[in-house]
């Protein structure tokens, strides 16, 4: 089945220790998104890629970076995680950029910062 896969599902890192979350898709979608979702809150868009074009949301901290080496894979790098970065990180894809397409979400990676 075509899908969005996120690894790992649970990640524990130490305060200040860099961490990378990964996302892969078999849908061959052009657009990939990273969202941050804190407990009982709305998913918040961090950035998205349209093909190889990177688009950062204005209020995404510099501590968060992303890489998309090819169509299938996208990585979220948190350079120096703080306690406030503990959250669920959701990867999503869509065929085209624009709210007229549904987004396909992975199961998420829950990040704990100790």
């Amino acid at each position: 089945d075509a899908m969005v896969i996120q690894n790992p599902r649970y990640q524990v890192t130490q305060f200040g220790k860099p961490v990378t979350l990964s996302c892969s898709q078999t849908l061959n979608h052009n657009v990939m998104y990273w969202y941050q979702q804190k407990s009982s809150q709305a998913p918040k868009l961090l950035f998205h890629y349209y093909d190889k074009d990177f688009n950062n949301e204005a209020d995404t901290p510099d501590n968060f970076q992303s890489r998309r080496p090819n169509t299938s894979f996208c990585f979220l790098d948190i350079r120096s995680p703080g306690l406030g970065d503990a959250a669920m990180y959701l990867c999503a894809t869509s065929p085209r950029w624009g709210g007229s397409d549904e987004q396909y979400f992975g199961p998420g990676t829950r990040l704990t910062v100790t």
Partner: protein
Amino acid sequence: SQQGEEDPQALSIQEGENATMNCSYKTSINNLQWYRQNSGRGLVHLILIRSNEREKHSGRLRVTLDTSKKSSSLLITASRAADTASYFCATDLGYGGSQGNLIFGKGTKLSVKP
């Protein structure tokens, strides 16, 4: 800034009853989408309704959109325990450079008791 706001924040019903959730938004939109999120999982797309549509159905789901009131409702008929989840509305913006991005509300937490 948050665009959509769901109401109520939490809803508890018995199996077989209908569940109605509402979403209000602030600015003009092109499309409005509803998503479901089971606890600790990713989001699953339910329905997309365009700004020129007033009502849409999908199985036991019925979505209405009133652009004059900037509001939408999601009705789940004959609810089941498996419908227990959080439900989010998401809107794009009808203007500006971020019109492709979805902005999620905080969600309604639905609990269906067997």
